């Protein structure tokens, strides 16, 4: 259950290190229903690591992640149920059709009608007509949509996206933005890591800059992108 203030994701004191090698040095994250947190930062700042911790793919060295109140980690399968993850890799199997891939995801999430859910998810991303093809035949934009269908098939309350705008042309990026806005309106919480701040700016409820494993900045989105960019560059390259 989301808490009374609508918090879906709440992570406290996240650290990820191996001995003296510290990737993340103590991060807090809180995202409510209908909110989008956009994270930017230089390469190697730890953005992907953070996202993997939030998704339950990795265990933090310290701190914890809670989604809908349940503690998320690799050994807690059910806590991952409300989470959807879109990586810059498609996570699709080349030997299965797109429809089979999405149906597989539906089965893994224990949905009652996997085939039907897959069809609906593919319809929502307007991929119904290409669903019987193999991923290798799809362009980057279509592959992205298939990937999203896969992530959304189980109706997640929290959606994590790792650089989803990479490699998308104008129309594809616009379509993605529309889809994400729909999800936000439906009450989903979003955490989005991107290099393409211009495309994600309007989506953001809050913006955060990750630098050397810490938040250099974490605040509500205000003003326009042109004001923000200089501050961002100064922080990210510090």
């Amino acid at each position, binding site marked *: 259950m989301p808490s009374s203030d609508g918090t879906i994701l709440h992570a406290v004191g996240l650290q990820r290190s*191996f001995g003296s090698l510290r990737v993340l040095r103590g991060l807090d994250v809180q995202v409510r229903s209908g909110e989008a947190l956009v994270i930017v930062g230089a390469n190697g700042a730890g953005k992907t690591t953070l996202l993997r911790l939030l998704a339950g793919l990795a265990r933090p060295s*310290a*701190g*914890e992640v809670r989604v809908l109140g349940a503690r998320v980690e690799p050994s807690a399968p059910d806590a991952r149920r409300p989470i959807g993850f879109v990586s810059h890799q498609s996570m699709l199997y080349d030997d299965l059709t797109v429809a089979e891939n999405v149906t597989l995801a539906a089965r893994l999430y224990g949905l009652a009608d996997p085939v039907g859910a897959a069809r609906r998810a593919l319809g929502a991303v307007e991929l119904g007509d290409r669903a019987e093809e193999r991923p290798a035949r799809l362009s980057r934009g279509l592959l992205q949509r298939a990937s999203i269908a896969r992530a959304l098939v189980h109706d997640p309350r929290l959606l994590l996206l790792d650089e989803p705008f990479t490699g998308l042309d104008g129309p594809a990026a616009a379509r993605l933005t529309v889809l994400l806005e729909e999800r936000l309106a439906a009450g989903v919480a979003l955490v989005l890591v991107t290099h393409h701040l211009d495309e994600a700016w309007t989506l953001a409820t809050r913006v955060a800059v990750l630098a050397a494993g810490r938040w250099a900045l974490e605040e509500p989105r205000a003003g326009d992108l042109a004001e923000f960019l200089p501050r961002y560059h100064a922080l990210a390259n510090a």
Partner: protein
Amino acid sequence: MTAPAPASVVSPPTLDRARVVMRRGTIISSIALVGLVVVYVLALGFTPIEAHQGLAQKIFYVHVPAAWSALLGFSLVGIVSVLYLWLHDPRLDRFAASSAEVGLVFAAVMLTTGPIWAKPIWGTWWTWDARLTLTLFLFFLFVGYLSLRAAVHDRHERARFSAVVGIMGMILVPFVHLSVYLFRTLHPQPIVLKPSAPSLPWEMLRTLLISTLVFTVLYVGLVTLRYGIALAADAMEARDAA
């Protein structure tokens, strides 16, 4: 409620500390090497020559303790691997890697002295007796372990994967032993490497025990030295990253 900081978030290693450890390791190893000379003198000068096998039997005083050290090294890798998966302390991983490298050296020593001994006495370079076979397996397990470590670059992964191989290897050893035992009861072969235990005269036993002690000290010294080197490498990496 946040979890308490686990051991994986330890204070960073420094080059000074690494130097201290390396120096300690060098000292211990040097003592052991002196001890090795003593054993050499003892074995050749103050221990009776075995009646049937002659002078070639003397290699027994190096061969058996080397096998013991290899087994010690391997057992420690196995135990430390279990501890690592439980505690996730990088120091355990560093220790396991050091122990594996040193154990590999001892296993190699044992595997070369074995044939050198067997050939003049039994006319055969190799037998599938229990100790030789087991040490051969340890050798291959060490090689696999170290090859895997060399091939994995992410430190978290490397530590976890090594621990898994260490544990599986430790569990394999009894099965190897059982198989050799069963094989030999059905296909009796010469027992090359152990003079009949009940009639081992005191002088020989004494030399063997001293040699085993020296080899154990040598193991400790070499592992300490190797650990110090690993510590230095980590310290430099931490310094560069900061």
